[in-house]
């Protein structure tokens, strides 16, 4: 008997739950001014989530998936990307989308049931939200291949959930990307739940990072509530990919503090006390405490920030609510580049029966 292969999975954390830092911090985090935009983006996401849930509760938005407690992942990852890179989000990734330049109003439109919410004016090549779990990993691998083929210095970055790591698409895509040495970074938001299924019942694997071993690529674990660790791991993986070093899998450990979506009631399947405990680890207070300890933040700046964010969100909501409903024609407009002649009669039928006001509120 001989040992023919050996593997290890490493875990990284820079900021302890109370904000204390492990020195040396990565380069970018030594200047607190570089952390403040990240802090802002996390706060923006959290406030947006609160607002979106309120809109849903009052019938002004469809089902919505909040990122509560997981803001460091999206912000940490997206802030490590270049604008020409491409992001492939899941439905819980608006934190990253906002950093990428998707507007709050676009996000609201999407969740309000309007396709125009995915016609981003900002990041033109970013993919729309992917609802069928793990399928985006295949698209990301293909996108990365396109960049490599054309020798573009671009990286495809996708986020997936802990539940998504059970799906064949994830493994198949990871295997393709590994063989292609494609510029791809896969980030697992391991928030410990896939709706009601806890992480322990999702896989018998000790870590999700070790799934990378199946494809022969690097897999690492970070504290997903530590924005420094997330950003650093993402930045390293992205630059490695850009330099031809191939794909990386990053498992970011966090916790879904809220319901799965507004259609879910998590008290049916998990203990409120266990959730309560997890608030001690959440990323925003952690970074705030860190900044406060470094004298880089203050109560005044906090108030000022929350005020600004509130105004930004209010403006977006106003814009969203004022957006005219989509027209009936819109259903036929982008089916194909040109509407096939065979569909002209159906389009006419739809128009004949169209209500005067166009679409309705989702």
């Amino acid at each position: 008997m001989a040992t023919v292969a050996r593997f290890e999975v490493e875990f990284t954390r820079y900021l302890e739950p109370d904000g204390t830092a492990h020195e040396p911090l990565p380069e970018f985090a030594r200047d607190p001014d570089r952390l403040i935009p990240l802090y802002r983006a996390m706060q923006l996401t959290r406030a947006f989530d609160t607002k979106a849930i309120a809109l849903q509760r009052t019938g002004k938005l469809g089902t919505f998936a909040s990122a509560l407690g997981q803001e460091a992942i999206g912000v940490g990852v997206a802030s490590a990307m270049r604008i020409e890179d491409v992001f492939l989000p899941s439905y819980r990734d608006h934190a990253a989308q906002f950093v990428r330049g998707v507007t709050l109003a676009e996000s609201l439109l999407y969740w309000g049931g309007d396709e125009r919410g995915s016609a981003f004016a900002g990041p033109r090549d970013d993919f729309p939200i992917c609802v069928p779990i793990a399928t985006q990993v295949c698209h990301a691998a293909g996108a990365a291949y396109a960049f490599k083929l054309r020798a573009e210095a671009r990286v495809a970055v996708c986020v997936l959930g802990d539940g998504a790591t059970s799906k064949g698409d994830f493994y198949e895509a990871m295997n393709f990307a590994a063989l292609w040495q494609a510029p791809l970074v896969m980030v697992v938001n391991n928030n410990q739940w896939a709706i009601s299924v806890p992480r322990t019942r999702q896989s018998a694997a000790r870590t999700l990072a070790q799934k990378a071993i199946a494809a022969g690529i690097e897999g690492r674990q970070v504290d997903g509530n530590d924005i420094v660790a997330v950003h650093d791991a993402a930045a390293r993986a992205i630059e490695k990919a850009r330099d031809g070093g191939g794909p990386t899998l990053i498992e970011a450990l966090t916790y879904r503090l809220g319901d799965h979506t507004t259609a879910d009631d998590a008290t049916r399947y998990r203990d409120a006390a266990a959730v309560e405990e997890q608030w001690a680890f959440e990323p925003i207070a952690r970074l705030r405490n860190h900044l406060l300890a470094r004298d880089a933040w203050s109560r005044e700046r906090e108030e000022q920030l929350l005020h600004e964010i509130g105004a930004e969100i209010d403006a977006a909501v106003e814009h969203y609510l004022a957006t005219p409903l989509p027209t009936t024609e819109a259903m036929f407009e982008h089916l194909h580049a040109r509407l096939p002649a065979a569909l002209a009669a159906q389009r006419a039928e739809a128009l004949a029966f169209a209500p005067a006001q166009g679409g309705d509120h989702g």
Partner: protein
Amino acid sequence: MAELNLVEAINRALAWEMAHDEAVVLLGEDIGVNGGVFRATVGLQERFGEDRVIDTPLAETAIAGTAIGMAAMGLKPVAEIQFSGFIYPTLDHLVNHAARLRNRTRGRLACPLVLRSPCGGGIHAPEHHSESPEAMFTNVPGLRVVVPSSPGRAYGLLLAAMRDPDPVVFLEPTRLYRLFRQEVADDGEALPLDVCFTLRAGSDVTLVSWGAMLHETLAAADQLAAEGVMAEVIDVATLKPLDLTTILESVARTGRCVIVHEAARTGGFGAEIAAGLAEHGLYTLLAPVRRVTGYDIVMPLARLEMQYLPSVERIVAAVRQTLEAS
């Protein structure tokens, strides 16, 4: 007799069969502690245990694939696919294995499984949650395809599906889950898996539909009745194998037929019914067959979905045109 809505009727049928046949096991995402995202399996894991009500990891291919292994080895798995838009990864296993295991082993092994999934739109759900994929299954030899349209029929047809020795795809219209209640005797009585149900008799036109669209179709029949037009309404219910006879007999009396379904028109299952009429009912047709269906477009997100779905107005208009035709 209890007043049940459709999702409760599903739950009762599952519970009945699990209590009476220990080979029945359920598997799917979030069907255990959570009772399913639509609550179809609520209380069943508590009652029958984690081994028989299995919360699976998130992997539809393996849900279908492992169900086949279970079924071949004597269990009767009832797999739940959480939403219709996520049913496609099961197709390979359904077509290449479930539908043909009996045939390819000359009856040595069989595959008595039920694949349940919600289907259809109209509840303003997120993207990919409002699909009507029945036509994906109706061209597959060896599969039965069932779509109930009322709590009572859901109960009886699901029992029949679970008792059938072969694979059944069972699509439950989400919009009907809580739309209305009906008295349903929880008596373990199954309904036949190969006859259409005539829900309303009429002499002027035959309306053929299934699933949630029966709701609009019956409403259209009401409205037409007020105008003096008597519509016969047929619930196809068991799409495959299709009971064309009931439809032909009705059209032989009415001479006119309007088919209503939610799925896109081209290649939808309505085509099969219209084709059956063109083949076997031509001489009885007094007017062209009409289909009132979803358009051949991507199911829109919530704001436009009601314009995609066939409305009472569209059905009534189609009937009027049919009546005006010579």
